[in-house]
C-alpha cells in the first residue's frame, strides 16, 4: 500500500477530490496547511507595521491506496490541481505497512 500526500492550492480542492472519486478513489483525508516554497508571499500592513507573509494557505490530502492505484491517483491529482504556476504544490509517495478499518477491524488492502 502506498500513502500519497499531496499539497495543493486550496482553490483546487474540489476539483482534485472530484477527480479522485472519478478515478475510483474515495478514501481521502484532508488538512488545512500553510506552505513555504518558491512561491513568493505577500505583504500585509497593520497600522504601518509591515508583515512579509511567506506562509501561504495550502491544503494537504492524504490517501492510502493499493500499489496499482497509486499512479492513477497521482495522475488524477496532477491533472486536476495544475494551474501551471509556481505554488501548485507537491506530491509525496511513501509506503504504508498496514491499514485497519476501525469499524470492523478489517486489515490490509480491504480496509482502504
Amino acid at each position, binding site marked *: 500500500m502506498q500513502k500519497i500526500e499531496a499539497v495543493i492550492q486550496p*482553490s483546487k480542492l*474540489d476539483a482534485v477530490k472530484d477527480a479522485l472519486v472519478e478515478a475510483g478513489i474515495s478514501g481521502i483525508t484532508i488538512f488545512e496547511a500553510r506552505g513555504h516554497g518558491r512561491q513568493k508571499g505577500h505583504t500585509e*500592513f497593520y497600522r504601518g507595521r509591515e508583515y512579509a507573509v511567506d506562509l501561504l494557505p495550502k491544503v494537504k490530502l492524504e490517501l492510502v491506496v493499493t500499489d496499482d492505484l497509486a499512479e492513477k491517483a497521482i495522475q488524477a491529482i496532477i491533472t486536476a490541481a495544475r494551474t501551471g504556476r509556481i505554488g501548485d504544490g507537491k506530491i509525496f509517495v511513501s509506503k504504508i505497512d498496514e491499514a485497519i478499518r476501525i469499524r470492523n477491524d478489517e486489515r490490509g488492502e480491504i480496509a482502504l
Partner: protein
Amino acid sequence: MAMLKRLQANPNHAAKLGFLLKTGLLLALCLVASAPLLAQSSAVTPERIAAIEKATAAAQSNADNAWMLTSAALVLLMSGPGLALFYGGLVRKKNILGTMMQTFAMMAVITVLWAIVGYSLAFGDGMAFIGGLHNAFLQGVGLAPDPAYAATIPAQTYMVYQLMFAIITPALITGAFAERVKFSALLVFMILWALLVYSPMAHMVWGKGGLLNAALGGRFPCLDFAGGTVVHVTSGVSALVTAIYLGKRVGYPKLPMPPHSVVLSFIGACLLWFGWFGFNAGSALASGSLATSAFVATHFAAAAAAIGWGAAEWVRNGKPSALGAISGAVAGLVAITPASGFVTPINALWIGLIAGVFCFFMVVKVKAIFGYDDSLDAFGVHGAGGTLGAILTGIFANSAINPILGAGKATGLLEGNGRQVLNQFIGVGIAWIVSIVGTLAILFIVDNLIGLRVSEDDEREGLDLTQHGEEGYDWDAA
C-alpha cells in the same frame, strides 16, 4: 460640559428670565389692580404666557430632537456595523474586510459629499427632479428648523438624519459588487451614483416641489414613508444592473461559496432590525404617536416576514434555517419601509408575511432561473421587497393612521382609493428607470476609466489581501 452648555442649550430660560425682569414692575402695577387676590409673583401677564409658549415649544423641540438624534444614530448603526456584518458574514473569509470596507467607505465618503453638495441636490430648492446648489457646503442649513421638512427640530438634525439614509442606500448596492470589485472603482461609482441616482430620487419623493412628493405638492403624490422607493428600489435595482454588468464571480455557481460566518450575519441582521426603528419610526420626524405607529408596524412586519421566509424554507427544504429567518426579517423590514406610518399593526403583519414569502421566492427561484450572480441578494431582498412594499402601501394605507391626503379622505385601495396604487406604480416605475439608466451609465464610465473588476488572480486571492493588504482573521500568530 457644564453650565456653559446649559445656557446655550436653553436660551429660552435666559429669555424667560429677561422678560420677567424687564416687565416686572409694569406687571406689578398693571395686574395687581385687575386681580387683587393674586400675589404679585404669580401674576398672569401676556409676557409670562409668551414665555411659557416659548418654553413649551422648546420642550417640544427637545423632545422630538431627542428622538431624532437617537434615530439618526440608529440609522448609522444600520450601516456600520449592521449591514457591514450582515453582508460580511455572507462572503468567504478572504473577502470579509473588503466587504465591510465597502460599507464603511460610504460612511466616510458620502458624508463629505453630502456636506459639499449632496444635501443641497436632494433637499435644496430646485425643480421637480432635483434640488439646487443653494445649500452647497450646507450654507443656510442651520440650527433653526426648516418648517417645510420638520418644524420642531433643528434643520441640521434633519440634514444629518437624511445623511444616514444617503449612506446606507449605496452601501446596500455593494451586495451585488461583492467579492469581485476594485475598491477604487467602487468609490468612484458610488460618488457618481449618489449624485446621479440618489439625490434626484430623494428630491422627487421628499424634496420641496419634488415630482412625487405627497406632502409638498408633488404632481404624482406617491406614498413613501421611510424610503421604499428612494432607498430600497433604487439600491436593489441598481444592484441587479450591476450584478448583470459585472458578470459572475470566478467559479460561480459551480464552486461552493457558503457564508463564512452566519454568526456575523445574524448579529448584523439583529442590528439592522434594531436600527430600523430609527429608520422608520424616526421618519415621523418627531416622537409623537405617528412614530409609535411606524415603530409597531416595523416590528410586526419583520416578525411576520421571518416566519414567512422560514415557513417557505420549511416546506421546501424540510427545515427552516437561521439565514432564512434573518433574511426574511430583513425582507419584511424592507417591505414595511414605505408603508410604516400609513398602516395598522395587523396589516403590517400581512405585509411582512407576504414580503417574506415573496423575497424567498425571488432569491431562491427567480435568481436561479435567470442565473445572474447577485452575490448577497441585494436585488432579491431590497429591489424586490422595496417594489412589493411600495405597491402594498398603496393598497393598505389607511387614513385613520395617517390622513396624508386630507382628513377623512380615502388613502389606500382598501379604503377605496384605487388611484393611489397607480401613483405607487408611477413612483416605483420612475425609481426603476432612474436606477437602471443611471447605474448603467455610471458602470460604463467607471469600467472604461478604471476598470470595475479585480483581476482573476486577485479575485482568487481575495479582496482583503489584494485591495487592502490585510486579513480578517489570524488564528495562528504565536
